[in-house]
C-alpha cells in the first residue's frame, strides 16, 4: 500500500540559521514586529510503498537518517498518511 510521507527538516536548535535571521529581519521591515525566532528549513513529500503505516514510517526514518537530513546540523520530523 502507498503511504504519503511528509518530512519536515529544520536547522538544529542552537545552530546559527542565517536564512532565518534574514527572513526575520525582512518581516520586521514589513512591520510584522511580533515575529521572532524564525527558522528556515525544508519540506520533502514522498510516497512510500509499505505493508503498514509503521513500516512506512520506519522506512522514511531511515531515509532521513541516511540522506534527507544531515544529522550534524538538522533535525527532522515525520508524518505518515494512508
Amino acid at each position, binding site marked *: 500500500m502507498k503511504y504519503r510521507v511528509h518530512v519536515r527538516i529544520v*536547522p538544529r536548535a542552537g*545552530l*546559527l540559521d*542565517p536564512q532565518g535571521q534574514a527572513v526575520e529581519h525582512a518581516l520586521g521591515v514589513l512591520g510584522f514586529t511580533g515575529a521572532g525566532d524564525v527558522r528556515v528549513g525544508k519540506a520533502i513529500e514522498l510516497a512510500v510503498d509499505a505493508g503498514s503505516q509503521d513500516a512506512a514510517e520506519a522506512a522514511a526514518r531511515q531515509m532521513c537518517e541516511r540522506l*534527507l537530513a*544531515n544529522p*550534524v546540523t538538522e533535525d527532522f520530523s515525520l508524518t505518515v498518511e494512508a
Partner: protein
Amino acid sequence: MLRVAVVRFPGSNCDWDAYHAVARAGAAASFVWHRDTDLQQADVVILPGGFSYGDYLRSGAIARFSPVMQAVQRHAAAGGAVLGICNGFQILCEAQLLPGALVRNNRLTFASRPVWVRVERTDTFCTSAYARGTEMRIPVAHGDGCYVADADTITLLEAEGRVVLRYVRGENPNGSVADIAGVSNAAGTIVGFMPHPERYADPLTGSDAGAGFFRSIAAWLPGGAARSTP
C-alpha cells in the same frame, strides 16, 4: 611518479585546475568519472571544487553516494590519501570521512575573494612543504562554507591538532567555528578545506602561494599505506 586521481562529478568545475596544479608540481594526474569504481591505482585522490549534482538537497549530499565514492571510501579505509577542496570538503563531511558539516555562510553572500589563511598542521601528505604557521592569501569561492561541529568535536580537533588550515583573525569569510578553514582525520591521510590553492598554483593566475599543497603531494611517500584496489 606519484599518481593522483582527480574525481569528476557532474557539476565539478575545478577539476582541470586541480589537474594542472598536480601536473605542474611533477606528479602524474588523471581523471576519474563519478560512475567509475576504479581509482587507477592512485596514491592520492582529489575531490575538486564545484557544484556536484547541482548542490541538490545539501552540498555534497548526493555525491557521497556516487559509485566512485564507494571506491574512495575503500581507498581511505586502507590508509590512502584523500584531499577534498571546497565542494570536495563538503562531500568528505557528508560521507563522514571528516567530522562536522559545512552550512550556509553566515552573511548569506557567496564569498568569492582571496583570504588570508594559516597552515596549522604540516604532517599531512598535502601540507608538508609549508612551515607551520605559514600565512598566505588563497581564494575562497563558496556559499556553504561555514564549518560547524558540536563542541566536543571542536575540542577534540583542537586537542589532536587536526585543524589543518585556519582563517587568519578577521579574515573568516563565512562564520566558521574557531575560524576553521580545513580539518583532517587523526592520521592526516584525509584532508578537506574550503580555500582553493589550485587557483593560486601558477604565477599565470596571479599567485603561486598555493603551489606548496601540490608540491607536498608530489613529494609525498605513501609509506606503508596500501594502494587502492578496484
